[in-house]
């Protein structure tokens, strides 16, 4: 578990950390579009430069990203290999055997896919490393506001999201406690055959669900007692503010977009 970097937060105080979470969410989304717009080596070089710049600005050491990508490397290599070996004929054919074709077209595409993977994973890791989950939730809720016009219950969803996030550590602790309690009574977790392992999960899952339902009941009563009626008629304590540095990031993004569009024509 600790190997996975995804969804973890690294508390530092860089300029990237202090950016508005809405801004970071939007930027990460648009960055993915930018990655797919790039279509030649020069444009990828520009993207890599911008990505490294963003990492530098976040003051998060590069090796942490490398560690984050490591668990995903097999998935990436698998995709790259498929692209490399089974590409349609195009350009110079380096190697041919029954249905396997290694072509120039395939090699170039495999390279592109490898870089795309790396860039997207790095940037989304940067987002989660530099933004607290709570801020991501607040940012998402704020970005979803326009969906109100199509009758999406945005405030209720935001409340659900914040409660879910608040209870993640509580339920993790609880799961650990139940596991230890069941171990003390002789349950082996992760031992024996597949069916036996799955069966051992039952004494964990059932109490965990029951406890979650009990908690939900208690929480809802406490919320009502504190005057919660309707998520629409509430004021907001946690407010996000768009600052000048947020605008500046979009200027940098626009520069990147312009450079890549020029490169595409080249």
């Amino acid at each position: 578990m600790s190997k996975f970097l995804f969804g973890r937060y690294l508390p530092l105080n860089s300029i990237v950390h202090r950016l508005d979470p809405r801004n970071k969410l939007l930027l990460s989304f648009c960055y993915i579009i930018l990655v797919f717009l790039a279509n030649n080596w020069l444009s990828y070089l520009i993207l890599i430069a911008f990505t490294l710049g963003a990492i530098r600005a976040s003051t998060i050491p590069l090796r942490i990203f490398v560690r984050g990508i490591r668990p995903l490397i097999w998935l990436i290599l698998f995709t790259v290999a498929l692209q490399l070996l089974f590409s349609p004929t195009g350009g110079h054919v380096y190697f041919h055997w029954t249905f396997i074709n290694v072509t120039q077209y395939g090699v170039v595409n495999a390279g592109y896919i490898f870089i795309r993977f790396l860039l997207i994973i790095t940037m989304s890791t940067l987002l989660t490393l530099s933004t607290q989950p709570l801020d991501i939730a607040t940012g998402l809720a704020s970005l979803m506001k326009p969906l109100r016009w199509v009758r999406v219950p945005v405030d209720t969803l935001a409340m659900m999201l914040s409660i879910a996030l608040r209870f993640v550590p509580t339920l993790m602790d609880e799961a650990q406690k139940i596991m230890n309690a069941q171990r003390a009574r002789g349950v082996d977790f992760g031992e024996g055959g597949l069916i036996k392992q799955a069966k051992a999960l039952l004494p964990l899952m059932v109490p965990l669900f029951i406890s979650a339902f009990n908690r939900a009941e208690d929480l809802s009563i406490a919320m009502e007692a504190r005057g919660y009626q309707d998520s629409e008629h509430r004021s907001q304590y946690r407010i996000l503010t768009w600052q000048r540095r947020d605008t500046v990031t979009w200027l940098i993004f626009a520069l990147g977009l312009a450079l890549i569009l020029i490169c595409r024509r080249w």
Partner: protein
Amino acid sequence: MENIIEVHQLSYQYPDASERPALNQISFDVRAGEWLAIVGHNGSGKSTLAKAIDGLLPFTEGEVIVGGVALTADTVWQVRHQIGMIFQNPDNQFVGATVEDDVAFGLENRQVPRDQMIKQVAEALQRVGMADFAQRAPSSLSGGQKQRVALAGIVAVAPKILILDEATSMLDPQGRQAMLALVRELHETQHLTVISITHDIDEAASANRILVVDDGRLVQEDSPAAIFAQGERLIELGLDVPFTAKLATALRQRGITPPSGYQTTAEMEEWLWQSLSNTSATPTKPTHP
């Protein structure tokens, strides 16, 4: 003093339980600024009573009037805004992702504007001594700290009535003492009306009046001194025996008769001093055979 809560002939039956009602014709009044303790066995209906007063349970029969407002489906929010409630499990009533978010929750529900909220949240946290923990997540706090945050959430909205529904029962002795001291201070400085539902002897001893509930009925209503004077019967009522009463029993077994009736710790101390200094005037050493 005027009555802030009036309960007339309150009855409630849980929908799934076919036998006896959880509350059976309960009537009592609470005066403004009073501290009332409600004690009773597990399953005696005392928690149900607290929820019924706050409109969290639709009672079948009877009437509840809070601050002059009769509790009905239309007035339930008007009633709830006058009452702050703290429940038993400190973890399960924590709504916010951080301490300050949780304290702000009640204010958000009342649509308090943001700049006012920031001030009130900071003040409330200061009041309960949790100002340094404002940014902390609930999972990093102890049970007693979480209950203090719950109390801050109530201080922030400043209700007239505070109901403690076994709020100290899951805390360690230190947490319990700290929490009670805070409630006592609020009771005195803010003239808050406190209703505490409890098994805890210290909490019951802080009250001006104790109601004893048994099997959904109100069986006794008296001052703490009168209730504590009942000695061993207290355990039947769902309370522990106070330390001074235990000491009195132990003394009686050794042939010493302390004054009858309930003594506070200070009174007992005084009596012990008095009787011991009397004997030391004419020094009589215990004779050893």
